[in-house]
């Protein structure tokens, strides 16, 4: 594939700027065009390692407890740090007294604002005297043990002169509201307006107009492993090594270097294993700087792991959104206008992930206008959380589409099918892979959506089963609204569906190096991260495929800013589509050079040789050399290959699309919702490892189910205090909440996206789950369930207000 120069004016330049989409925002990058890139693996490519359901390469470490996470790193004479946090939401610190803490047993050091350089995190200053939320770090202590540090943090005396606070969007924009930021309580870009066509004209052309108001809750990532860092300085304190649980080693390196006034190469960030991120671990945090600063002051290694309370009150969240949506359509269902106004409650910081961006993408419509307003309030900052913005917007849009279907008496699935956009409407270009329609149809078939072909050969036993469907009740499902009664009236069954789109095409820059060892095995080096997604395994498969080696002969080394070449953050579902092509390119180079060496030994031409299963064979199959034979004869000659990710084509849009279908049971007396089953079909291009793709699909669906039914961070409006800052009261799904899941990806490849044909899959599956479930609850009850999560109280309220 020839990489296209992103700008005509770039002509034949090698170093060009290009635009990469990251979590819905566009970033401009400089990229060095690869001299040549491999031909794409097409539909008919005969691949032997890529596409196989290989168990993850680090599973043995994980099931034995030998995988080391940040809290497991032990350095000689290491100290432990604990963070002192504000307990009220707003005010000014008049005094911090650490003398008591310093006198406590085992305590070595304590730091406050006076002891550190000015460090900015999420637009706020670390240890700022101005308190802006409960949980804000105001000081830190370190001690010989973690327990001693925690105990000492408790006895640091912090005096705060309390000020008035704002906890909600409405409070923030009220006249005379206390200011969260000096610049005001709405972000500088607010209102942020995006418009295409003319919505007034679109609404005047509509036969039917529906309006709705939707709300998604503030949600907490709640990764199993809290944030953490271990810091150690070398020599006389001029080189820092950081072990950090992060989605981006290079980003953390750059932020720490900037914050501490160091040259970037003086900071080494290492990430080996981490216990999930979901967007909350994209940057250096307070804990990172605290560990680094205390380590420098004490001359000893310092570990700073955030405790669960700190994790839930101070490491980011999906912000609450309220969206007013108006849809206009012709009688046949064709959308004529989409108008959306959103209000996002950010907390004290974060970035503006538009909840209405999806309104411009998911369905075809000439006239779209969206207005976003972002407000600052006295609570922890927003941070990326698995498909930020799109999850919130999809709930509003897909609930709106069901309301529209009902108003038009059109089947909700047919309404969506008749509005599949078929192209990237914002940029006026086709998609590299346009398969939303296929996902909808295949999902409907698997689900047995009424009016669609009965699910061919789909037996209950084929479902990825938990509980059986057959519970003795008569099961009726009808599409398009109306109450579905089952088993005598109290328990109501319903079905619903929703679709998804998400930019997951990846992009440059990303690098990989592969070195062939003298025993014929290969090491892949790349500065990307495996958050638990399976990056290590998938990159090993791509490397083995391109090298022509056995899978088990490849070792993947990731996440070390000193020893692995650059790769960006693992966010925006872009890791494999970004790094995978670089790994393949490096592997092809190693194979080419290995074959050249083998050709000299076999006295033939390199073109007469092929490599498979770590064996090089002549085309006629008569002579063979193993990789180890060749490297053995080469002594200490080191064959290495380098690969880089070229720019994306500008003439196609890169998105991952999908559709999900839900069946629920609602207890009409208690409001309790039970999800019976979910069918999911997504198109993410080539699936490198179906076993790991399955994990991503199921995991995304269950996080979506949590958002639909349970998850909501609650802050007391009067006091500004978080009321559920632990895993007891902040409810994430458990094993018993899991329905039957039939999740699959279309068996396709996307050679226009990049030369491995893969796009991303981490975020897409969470997007349609909550709206599909809510649509099913609406279908079961006939009630407008437009606020998440669908707790029994909300469901009962919706039923009562509908039938009052």
């Amino acid at each position, binding site marked *: 594939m020839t990489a296209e120069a992103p700008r005509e004016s770039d002509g034949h330049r090698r170093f060009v700027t290009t635009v990469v989409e990251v979590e819905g925002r566009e970033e401009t990058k400089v990229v060095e065009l690869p001299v040549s890139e491999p031909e794409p693996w097409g539909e008919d490519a005969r691949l032997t390692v890529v596409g196989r359901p290989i*168990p*993850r390469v*680090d*599973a*043995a*470490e*994980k*099931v*034995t*407890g*030998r*995988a*080391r*996470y940040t*809290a*497991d790193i*032990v350095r000689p004479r290491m100290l432990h740090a604990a963070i002192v946090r504000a307990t009220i939401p707003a005010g000014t610190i008049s005094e911090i007294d650490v003398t008591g803490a310093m006198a406590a047993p085992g305590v070595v050091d304590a730091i406050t604002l006076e002891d550190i350089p000015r460090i900015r995190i999420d637009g706020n200053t670390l240890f700022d005297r101005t308190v802006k939320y409960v949980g804000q770090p105001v000081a830190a202590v370190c001690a010989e*043990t*973690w*327990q001693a540090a925690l105990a000492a943090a408790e006895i640091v005396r912090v005096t705060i002169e309390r000020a008035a606070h704002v906890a909600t969007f409405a409070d923030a924009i009220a006249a005379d509201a206390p200011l969260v930021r000096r610049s005001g309580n709405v972000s500088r870009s607010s209102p942020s307006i995006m418009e295409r066509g003319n919505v007034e004209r679109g609404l005047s052309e509509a036969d039917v107009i529906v309006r709705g108001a939707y709300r998604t809750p503030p949600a907490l990532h*709640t*990764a*199993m*492993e*809290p944030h953490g860092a271990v810091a150690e300085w070398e020599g006389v304190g001029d080189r820092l090594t950081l072990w950090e649980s992060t989605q981006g080693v290079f980003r953390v390196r750059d932020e720490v270097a900037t914050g501490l006034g160091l040259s970037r190469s003086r900071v080494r960030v290492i990430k080996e*294993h*981490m*216990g*999930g991120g*979901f967007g909350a671990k994209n940057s250096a945090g307070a804990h990172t700087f605290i560990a680094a600063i205390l380590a420098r002051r004490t001359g000893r290694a310092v570990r700073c792991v955030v*405790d*669960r309370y700190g994790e839930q009150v101070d490491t980011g969240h999906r912000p609450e959104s309220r969206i007013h949506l108006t849809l206009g359509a012709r009688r046949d269902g064709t959308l004529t206008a989409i108008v959306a106004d959103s209000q996002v409650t950010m907390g004290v910081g974060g970035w503006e992930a538009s909840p209405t961006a999806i309104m411009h993408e998911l369905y075809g419509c000439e006239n779209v206008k969206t207005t976003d307003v972002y407000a600052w309030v006295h609570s922890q900052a927003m941070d990326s959380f698995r498909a930020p913005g799109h999850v919130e917007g999809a709930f509003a849009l897909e609930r709106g589409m069901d309301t529209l279907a009902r108003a038009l008496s059109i089947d909700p699935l047919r309404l969506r099918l008749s509005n599949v956009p078929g192209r990237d409407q914002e940029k006026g270009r086709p998609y590299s892979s346009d398969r939303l329609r296929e996902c909808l149809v295949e999902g409907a078939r698997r689900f047995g959506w009424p009016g669609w072909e009965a699910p061919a050969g789909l037996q209950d036993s084929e479902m*990825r*089963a*938990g*509980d059986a469907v057959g519970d003795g009740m008569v099961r009726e499902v009808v599409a398009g609204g109306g109450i579905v009664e089952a088993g005598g009236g109290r328990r109501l069954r319903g079905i619903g569906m929703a679709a998804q789109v998400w930019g997951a095409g990846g992009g440059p820059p990303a690098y990989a190096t592969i070195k062939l060892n003298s025993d014929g095995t290969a090491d892949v080096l790349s500065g990307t991260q495996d*958050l*638990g*997604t*399976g990056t290590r395994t998938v990159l090993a498969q791509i490397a083995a495929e391109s090298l022509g080696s056995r899978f088990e002969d490849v070792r993947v080394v990731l996440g070390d800013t000193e020893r692995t070449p650059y790769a960006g953050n693992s966010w925006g579902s872009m890791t494999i589509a970004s790094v995978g092509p670089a790994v393949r390119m490096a592997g092809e180079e190693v194979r080419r050079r290995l074959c050249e060496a083998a050709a000299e030994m076999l006295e033939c031409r390199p073109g007469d040789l092929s490599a498979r299963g770590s064996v090089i064979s002549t085309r006629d199959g008569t002579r063979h050399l193993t990789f180890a034979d060749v490297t053995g004869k080469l002594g200490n000659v080191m064959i290495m290959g380098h690969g880089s990710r070229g720019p994306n084509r500008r003439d196609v849009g890169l998105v991952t699309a999908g559709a999900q279908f839900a069946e629920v049971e609602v207890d009409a007396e208690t409001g309790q919702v039970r999800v019976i089953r979910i069918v999911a079909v997504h198109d993410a291009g080539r699936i490198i490892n179906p*076993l*790991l793709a*399955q*994990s991503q*699909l*199921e*995991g995304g*669906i*269950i*996080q979506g189910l949590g958002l639909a039914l349970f998850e909501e961070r609650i802050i007391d409006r009067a006091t500004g205090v978080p009321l559920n800052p*632990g*895993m*007891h009261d902040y409810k*994430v*799904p*458990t*094993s*018993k909440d*899991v329905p039957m*899941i039939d999740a699959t990806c279309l068996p396709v490849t996307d050679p226009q996206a990049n030369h491995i044909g893969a796009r991303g899959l981490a975020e897409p599956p969470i997007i349609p789950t909550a709206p599909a479930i809510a649509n099913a609850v609406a279908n079961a009850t006939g009630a407008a369930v437009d606020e998440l999560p669908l707790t029994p109280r909300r469901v009962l309220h919706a039923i009562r207000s509908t039938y009052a």
Partner: protein
Amino acid sequence: MRIPVRFELNGHAVEVEVAPDRTLLDLLRDTMGETGTKEGCREGECGACTVVVDGRAVNSCLFPAPEIDGTRVLTIEGLSCDHGRLSRVQQAFLDASGTQCGFCTPGMVMTAVAFLAENPAPMDTEIREALTGNLCRCTGYVQIVEAIQLAARRSRDPQA
């Protein structure tokens, strides 16, 4: 004040002194240096710290260290000391992709070990019930349940 305790850890006799405010999790991770048992919440909610005490799966973060005296403790480190060979439950978690980020995995595995000892031929619903104290944020639990079911099948038929 330090309290002497004697117990059996993964088949080996251990004699240590512990402070009365320490938990079994602290004892394992800090005193013994066995970091396979994970700390996810320190409040008995997530189950990442699950170990087996006298055959019962417990949250080691809630278990007072002095109470360990006279017990037999099995942790993730005690499952696979046989020349690096994985135990049946561990192998099943590996084969069925019952692990993603892996942070909850040691706790999941220990819960499964205690559970299967009591109920060697469980229904899926029983496995789901047994796992309710072990949270996982990456997987959909589906492959974890399959892993435990696979381990159960293999205990009846090693070829499964």
